[in-house]
């Protein structure tokens, strides 16, 4: 085919192609100029960083002591197991995986999968196989028989340990592997993916002290993470140690008594808390049943978790702060103080309780007995319900005007009810202090005098935490200062230097007449001296208020197989320095026994009173300890 009559190439097109090529090279050159000459220094430093990496060294977590130096949380040396796939011959992988499976308690499939994934991703980089640290003997086994475990590395990895798990888990909580949310929240605090972090309790609350500061090892390495050499080391700063206000001796005594009752079936659950009323230091905090917080360190099984979650007693909840209960007669503190402060009552307000029933508007309101005429001290000491119905809600039959629900709510809140106390623990409940407004908002119903009566004796809608109750009575016992209860006495560095000491923190001074508080203290003392709170042969000037809070049907049955009205027992107490009513107490204690009606005794002595006497007398050294106390 002849192409003669055809122009087979346009010079203009060739020129266009040439110009396009030149233009393209100009663009490439400009880009290169920008990368290499303008930003050359920047990329040079990036290339340096590529070679030199900083590898974090995790700090030792701070330990936790009680106020006298007993160790409550420590770090046991533990070990992590990892595998470098390139050092593990493929034909031995199955064999090694099955051996490791037996030793570290992970399934063969899991281990094989982890190694194989790493083999394709980066066979030079170790893959950590242990989710949690393993014990020393296991690590030694692996190291001694290293010929059986090619490519397997064992490295240090501390293990948090709690010597008294059941006793302290409600206070200390536990640590665990950091999760994605926590990591995001702490990204700027130097947390890493392999970090542990406090999950609850003081471990959570004081994470910032306990954690310490990461150290760094600067190493040169290649892209396959092979280390070529260490260039420098910045050692980690260990976390600070916590010294708690808790006294292990008191904690043990209290826990022993409360736990024994649960074991003997006298009550299903219990909470006990003691503090120094003069500064808010918590001396003991016991919640029974509790849980084994060591289990969270070594790994909680699903069945264990299910068991805890399905237990109606909620062992994972700290009952001292995390749950709320009707306070029963202990709430007469609020009713009494409201009546005194509003002028409704004085020490000499006498009400003749000549019947067990007060009938108002056709409804019957009962007392536990017909007391006869009672003044304020007598009414408080004998815990007369009708006396306090009258002080709280008045008596339409006699024309006596009570303090009223608004005053009750006001003084309850002043005493710290209805709001968290602010203790240094997570998961604190607010409790409920009802008033007419609250009831209308909640139930859409108007307040009745019956509501006031019920509130006056701590029943009905009122709900408090044991800690709120204790703290309110502590404010009475110290003469009118509401302190923020706290568990932390001080924070010390590993070499003993105190870096933080919270000290007493005043929530508020009670806006009441100090004489009225003295009346309450006298009433509390009278309850003990008249044996309403039965403390035979007591060797200390105890004062306190009992409470019996009804809550429906008991789990227990009486001799005839009837289920009785169920109740919880309370006893809140304080111990002045002398046999007088001065605000000098250095210890106050609240004990709450859940469903103590289980025992269905005939002469129902409030068991919380006896516990208080035994625990505090032993603690103060005036009685001999029960030989069984651990």
């Amino acid at each position, binding site marked *: 085919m002849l192409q003669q009559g055809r122009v087979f190439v346009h010079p203009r097109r060739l020129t266009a*192609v040439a110009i396009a090529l030149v233009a393209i090279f100009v663009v490439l050159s400009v880009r290169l100029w920008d990368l290499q*000459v303008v930003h050359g220094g920047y990329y040079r430093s990036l290339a340096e960083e590529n070679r030199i990496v900083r590898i974090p060294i995790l700090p030792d977590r701070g330990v936790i002591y009680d106020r006298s130096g007993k160790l409550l949380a420590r770090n046991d040396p533990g070990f992590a197991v990892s595998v470098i796939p390139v050092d593990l011959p493929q034909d031995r992988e199955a064999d090694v995986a099955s051996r490791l499976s037996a030793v570290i308690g992970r399934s063969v499939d899991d281990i094989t999968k982890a190694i194989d994934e790493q083999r394709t991703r980066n066979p030079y980089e170790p893959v950590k196989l242990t989710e949690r640290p393993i014990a020393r003997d296991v690590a030694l086994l692996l190291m001694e028989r290293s010929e059986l475990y090619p490519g397997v590395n064992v490295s240090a990895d501390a293990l948090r340990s709690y010597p008294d798990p059941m006793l302290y888990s409600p206070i200390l909580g536990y640590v665990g592997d950091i999760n994605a949310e926590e990591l995001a929240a702490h990204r700027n605090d130097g947390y890493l993916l392999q970090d542990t972090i406090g999950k609850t309790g003081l471990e959570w609350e004081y994470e910032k002290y306990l954690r310490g500061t990461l150290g760094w090892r600067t190493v040169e390495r290649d892209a396959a993470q092979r280390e070529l050499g260490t260039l420098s080391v910045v050692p980690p700063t260990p976390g600070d140690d916590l010294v708690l206000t808790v006294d292990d001796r008191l904690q043990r005594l209290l826990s022993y008594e409360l736990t024994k009752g649960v074991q003997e079936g006298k009550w299903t659950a219990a909470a006990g808390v003691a503090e120094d009323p003069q500064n808010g230091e918590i001396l003991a905090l016991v919640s029974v049943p509790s849980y084994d917080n060591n289990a969270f360190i070594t790994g909680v099984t699903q069945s264990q978790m299910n068991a805890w979650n399905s237990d109606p007693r909620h062992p994972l909840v700290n009952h001292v702060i995390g749950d709320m209960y009707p306070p029963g007669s202990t709430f007469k503190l609020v009713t009494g103080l409201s009546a005194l402060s509003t002028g409704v009552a004085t020490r000499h307000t006498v009400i003749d309780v000549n019947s067990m029933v007060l009938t108002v508007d056709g409804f019957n309101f009962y007392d536990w007995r017909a007391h006869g005429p009672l003044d304020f001290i007598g009414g408080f000491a004998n815990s007369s319900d009708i006396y306090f119905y009258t002080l709280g809600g008045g008596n339409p039959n006699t024309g006596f005007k009570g303090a009223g629900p608004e005053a009750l709510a006001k003084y309850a809140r002043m005493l710290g009810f209805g709001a968290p106390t602010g203790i240094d623990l997570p998961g604190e409940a607010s409790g409920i202090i009802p008033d007419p407004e609250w009831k209308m908002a909640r139930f859409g119903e108007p307040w009745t005098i019956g509501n006031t009566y019920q509130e006056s004796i701590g029943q009905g809608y009122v709900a408090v935490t044991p800690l709120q109750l204790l703290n309110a009575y502590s404010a009475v016992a110290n003469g009118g200062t509401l302190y923020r209860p706290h568990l932390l006495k001080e924070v010390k560095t590993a070499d003993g230097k105190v870096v933080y000491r919270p000290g007493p923190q005043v929530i508020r001074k009670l806006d009441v007449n100090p004489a009225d508080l003295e009346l309450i203290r006298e009433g509390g003392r009278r309850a003990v001296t008249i044996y309403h709170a039965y403390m035979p042969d007591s060797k200390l000037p105890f004062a306190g208020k009992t409470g019996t809070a009804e809550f429906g049907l008991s789990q227990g049955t009486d001799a005839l197989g009837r289920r009785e009205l169920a109740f919880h027992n309370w006893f809140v107490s304080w111990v002045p320095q002398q046999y007088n009513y001065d605000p000098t107490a250095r210890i106050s204690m609240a004990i709450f026994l859940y469903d103590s009606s289980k025992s269905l005794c005939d002469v129902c002595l409030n068991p919380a009173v006896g516990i208080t006497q035994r625990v505090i007398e032993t603690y103060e050294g005036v009685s001999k300890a029960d030989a069984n106390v651990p």
Partner: protein
Amino acid sequence: MSVRPIAIPVAASPLHDRPTERRLLSFDWILLTSTLLLVAYGVVVGYSTAMEDRASGADVGEQVLRAILYAVIGLSVMTVVALVDHAWLGTFSPFLYVMTLVLLAMVLVIGHSTLGATRWVSIAGFRFQPSEFAKVFMVIVLAKWFADHEARSVLGLAGALALIAVPVALVYRQPDLGTSIVFLGMFFGIALVAGARPWHLTALLAAGAAAVPLLYGHLQAYQQSRLTAFLNPYADPRGAGWNIIQSLIAVGSGSLTGKGLTAGTQSPLGYLPISQSDFVFAGLAEDLGFVGAMILFVLYLVLLLSVLRVAHRSRDAFGAYLAGGVAALLGFQIVVNVGMAISLMPVTGVPLPFISQGGSSLISICLALGALQSICTHQEVTSAVSSSSAAARGS
């Protein structure tokens, strides 16, 4: 049938009978010089990257010897092809086309896999990459097609498109997205030089652009992530963006004069992936800096402009289109490879002419450049052709 439009009338011209030596001396010495310098540059860079990659355990001496061997083979092939009348290649074009298809089909059937793609075949102990030869063969096939068919007509253009479609599909199946794109780029280059109507080409480009979303959905996940990674490599710095970021660091850290031959750090520490082939430019820019890259660019530009000059000097359509196609092929590969290393283009596996290590690429390019020299040495009727072509334009 002849590819020399006015060969017969001048057959008796005294010029036609000039001695072979003198004919051979009419080769394009600028093209030859730049070719030789680029081949040498490739050997030097190959030595440097081999030294830097010695941690991988490969024998440096063996790699350098291999690079030199490929250079010798390539230059020999170039010489042989240069001595032969380039018209021969056109005559062989149907055979070359079938061979292209067979080679590419072979890859799919018996090819070796590296990094998830199958691009190699072994024949008699030699591993080679058929798609490299396929590129050059397809330049010849298309040049021949446009020499015989009017590129301005729809049929001529559509025929060429049909020719290229089959190898593109086969290469795409490997999967080798980069080579597919190079094929298409080369097609547009030849069509442009061959005089296809601008609006035809524009329409084709528009159709191609319209098909992009469809094709994108059809791509493998790794190809998709490579394509998107270049837009923002820092979105997944340890994944899809890793290669790009490390390549940028290598290039940028080379600064003005580079770290020196064999002194680069990105490649020996394993940060720079496939530093001897796809990302070879990054290694070169790290070692030799902006200056070294500019020397390379100048050599490339001289080479490409010489190739275009050959197209201009060619006295026959086949030769002109062949030269245009070679310019497009080389230019496209350079832009795609360098653009990838400096994050102006998505990451695709296209070798950098002369610099990427591997015999297939170098030998096939040498083959093409030999054909161009042949165009220069086999046009003995300069004046007559000029007058005739002027006459043709005038008519």
